[in-house]
């Protein structure tokens, strides 16, 4: 497993992403600039960290989608390569059309910055066990997932709703939804083999007991295990 973390101007969660991959999960990890036009050839996983790429100008992720590196990421994703977008990374993936839907202003207008629980509601490379409940922090003002009713139905039917906001015991209820996301969606799968995951919570900020918990590590361990040749 070789991971590549993409650096856009204005992101701020790259150090934790690199630390999680390299020091916690033991994955060889490179960083690549937004101006590059190719990914390192050995790349298995592309990780797009959170933050405020290009100052969130126009819309979150709107400017990043035309960065030179995006074509290489799109080609990697279409070939079935793993892509993880966290927070602003999720917003970039929806703006680039690699995941459906859009992330809009939180229902309550607040920037929500606290721990949440999410429940695995679809299995895939990053979430192997249905029903798992993970505690992870969120930190966003625009995380309310929106899509047309048809898209939401397809996501559900195709088992692409990876994570939903829930209570600590795994009940998906409105009171556990921090931003008004449709169907309590916290993360979705895309790509030809669910190889793309976008999520608003920050697994890299909860991957080591030093950070107050390590539920987020399960997501990274899962994709590392998934990438192992049988």
């Amino acid at each position: 497993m070789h991971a590549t973390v993409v650096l856009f101007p204005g992101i701020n969660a790259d150090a934790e992403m690199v630390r999680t991959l390299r020091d916690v999960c033991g994955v060889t990890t490179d960083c690549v600039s937004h101006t590059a036009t190719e990914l390192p050839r050995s790349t298995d996983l592309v990780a797009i960290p959170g933050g405020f790429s290009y100052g969130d100008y126009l819309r979150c992720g709107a400017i990043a989608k035309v960065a030179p590196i995006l074509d290489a990421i799109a080609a990697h994703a279409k070939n079935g390569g793993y892509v993880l977008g966290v927070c602003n990374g999720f917003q970039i993936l929806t703006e680039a059309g690699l995941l459906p839907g859009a992330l809009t202003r939180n229902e309550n207008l607040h920037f929500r910055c606290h721990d949440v629980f999410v429940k695995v509601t679809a299995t895939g490379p990053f979430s192997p066990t249905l029903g798992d409940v993970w505690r992870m922090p969120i930190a966003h003002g625009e995380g309310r997932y929106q899509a047309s009713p048809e898209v939401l139905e397809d996501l559900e039917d195709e088992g692409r709703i990876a994570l939903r906001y829930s209570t600590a015991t795994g009940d998906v209820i409105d009171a556990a939804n921090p931003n008004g996301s449709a169907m309590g969606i916290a993360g979705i799968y895309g790509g030809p083999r669910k190889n793309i995951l976008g999520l608003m919570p920050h697994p890299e900020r909860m991957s080591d007991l030093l950070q107050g918990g390590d539920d987020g590590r399960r997501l990274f361990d899962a994709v590392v295990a998934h990438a192992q040749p049988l």
Partner: protein
Amino acid sequence: MKPAASIRATVIVRLKPEVLDPQGTAVQRALGRLGFQGVKNVRIGKIVELEIDDDGTSAADLEDRLEKMAKEMLANPVIEDFEAKIS
């Protein structure tokens, strides 16, 4: 050298009617607190003003270009509608 003539265009971007606008709701409530009665609904959008080289393109072609710009960058068609005007 004489600078090339330019055309001014405006693209208005609005949230689709079915998309909740928490910003608009907050402003509507704030207007009420300022004493402005009867404001039932507020929706907030964006105006993008563009100055484009006048290379002799027809108005129809320019409208097509603006529509492409709006679809690909200025608006997010998943959540927003737009209206392009050449002035």
